[in-house]
């Protein structure tokens, strides 16, 4: 990113200039949503570290998808509103089934320096589908506020004269978003991680068939390869230290390139009863090692919003119980906001998790309800009497008739 991004960057001091060059130090401090997938309505404050819990199919991934959607609109290559909607199977797939009277989908995010801080930016958009013709999705509104001052309010006069303009957001058009380029950068930098070890392990045999933005980590090695050598070395050494706690027999972690194909690889040296037999490539790593590796790397990678999907999968409960404090200690250096969807008791049974850091998703007949755990009276009282989030919030996400599963005949 080059400087001169207009007002957005000017507001930051010179001291910040260097870090700003790389990243956008902000968090999403508030999220409002209307009729998005299985949510009729969301209106919650978010913090630097936010855990999203709920029963199966309560919409944890759909909630994270709000941010991926904004990224998909804003991304420089192959982005845009129409594509983002089309990739999700059309507006009818995105719109909440509970949205009967009011068919508009609306998203509004507030960006701030930290939780509870005054807003720096606010971005809002509304969507509907044409009722005739191509049934294209179009904007019902697009609004931007810098601090308290509104700097964009669409539809403008031109939009009304040329309806086609409403099929694109300003977010995706470089020549009209100069004033709020900082928001664009922020959305572009959103990272989603749901590392599937099998896909990474067989990346070579699957050959290049990469999903855009690589949500499942197939191109993880390419990402590692892209970092400059010094950065890569320092990150890998941190990852190695952390990995060694989980996998004590791991001695050393190294980045290499295949001598013939030039493909990037990670290799690890395990202490072994047979000397010189210990180097293994990532395709021989265990699922847990691979996931942990991807997770650790992602946490160190940048300062932008990170979306983690069930990081506990294939990890030992002892390690999982350390994820929450690990995320927080990582945030001391890099203020990367992390949204984590999870089912894990071990992850949430950590004393240091604040009830405000937990979003509880509860399915109802009118779509899923989203509440900050600390705002639920019983939960707050119990947390204040010393119970952990895992003890109090997770039972609320268990299906009440789970026992019947074993009675299926």
């Amino acid at each position, binding site marked *: 990113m080059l400087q001169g991004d207009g007002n957005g960057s000017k507001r930051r001091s010179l001291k910040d200039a260097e870090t700003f060059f790389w990243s956008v130090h902000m968090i999403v401090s508030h999220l409002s949503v209307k009729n998005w997938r299985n949510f009729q309505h969301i209106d919650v404050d978010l913090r630097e570290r936010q855990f999203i819990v709920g029963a199966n199919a309560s919409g944890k991934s759909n909630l994270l998808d709000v941010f991926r959607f904004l990224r998909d609109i804003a991304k420089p290559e192959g982005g845009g509103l129409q594509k983002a909607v089309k990739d999700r199977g059309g507006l009818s797939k995105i719109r909440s089934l509970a949205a009967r009277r009011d068919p508009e989908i609306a998203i509004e995010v507030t960006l701030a320096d930290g939780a509870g801080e005054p807003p720096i930016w606010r971005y809002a958009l509304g969507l509907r589908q044409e009722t005739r013709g191509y049934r294209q999705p179009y904007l019902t509104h697009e609004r931007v506020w810098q601090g308290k001052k509104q700097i964009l309010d669409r539809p403008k006069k031109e939009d009304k004269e040329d309806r086609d303009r409403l099929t694109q957001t300003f977010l995706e058009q470089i020549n009209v978003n100069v004033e709020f380029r900082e928001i664009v950068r922020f959305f572009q930098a959103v990272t989603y991680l749901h590392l599937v070890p099998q896909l990474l392990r067989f990346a070579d045999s699957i050959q290049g068939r990469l999903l855009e933005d690589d949500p499942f980590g197939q191109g993880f090695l390419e990402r590692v390869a892209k970092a400059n050598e010094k950065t890569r070395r320092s990150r890998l050494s941190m990852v190695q230290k952390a990995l060694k706690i989980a996998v004590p027999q791991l001695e050393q972690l190294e980045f290499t390139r295949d001598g013939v194909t030039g493909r990037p690889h990670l290799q690890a040296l395990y202490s072994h009863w047979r000397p010189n037999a210990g180097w293994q490539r990532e395709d021989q790593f265990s699922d847990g090692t691979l996931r942990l590796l991807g997770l650790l790397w992602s946490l160190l990678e940048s300062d932008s919003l990170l979306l983690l999907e069930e990081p506990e999968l294939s990890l030992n409960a002892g390690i999982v119980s350390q994820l929450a404090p690990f995320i927080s200690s990582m945030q001391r250096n890099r203020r990367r906001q992390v949204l984590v969807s999870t089912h894990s*008791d071990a992850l949430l049974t950590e004393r240091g998790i604040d009830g405000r850091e937990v979003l509880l998703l509860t399915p109802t007949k009118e779509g899923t309800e989203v509440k900050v755990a600390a705002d639920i*009276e*019983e*939960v707050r*009282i*119990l947390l204040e*009497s*010393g*119970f952990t989030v*895992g*003890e*109090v919030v*997770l*039972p*609320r996400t268990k299906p009440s008739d789970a*026992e*019947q599963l*074993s*009675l299926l005949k």
Partner: protein
Amino acid sequence: MSRTTAILAVEDKLSEAVSIKILEDRGIGISQQLVLKGKGYLEKKAQSLNQTAKAIPVFMLTELDSPGQCPPQLVRSWIKGGQNPKFFLRVAVMEVESWIMADRKGFADFLSIPIHRIPRNTDAIPQPKEFLVSLARLSKKARLREDIVPAPGATSQVGPRYNSCLWEFVRVRWNIQLAASVSRSLKRTLERLRTFDAM
């Protein structure tokens, strides 16, 4: 102001089913439940929950397990200082299985065994779980035997679907009034809950 909901704290799935049934019977809803982590966990948390009960009623059900103690002793050893009137700490004598079997007619029908196989005072059965398994061995229903009785050589004391089987019985068939007429300990719990509305 009277409340009709409580926080529920129990040891396991079976006590949960029993508690839900008891609270339903008294018209009390459950606003919040704690994790199921066994008796040791409840003991550790009793003190905090006694505090919590100042704000919201708490219903906790545990088991006496051994005849060496009596319920008031157990309660005193769990709660230092006074017990909050809204903290309903109840102790099943000996185990929650005793309360389940106390619906003698219902349970005998469920297992297809003669009613006289179940003692008239189920609270006095020293090891209710083992006794219940031994009753299930007599069952004419092969499926139930497989579910409740552990396989020969198994290290577990109960069969593979013990909990879900009994859970289903409690949810669908268990008659609290009949059970309370047999189990004194259950009867007292129901009586104690009468004071719930007065809170």
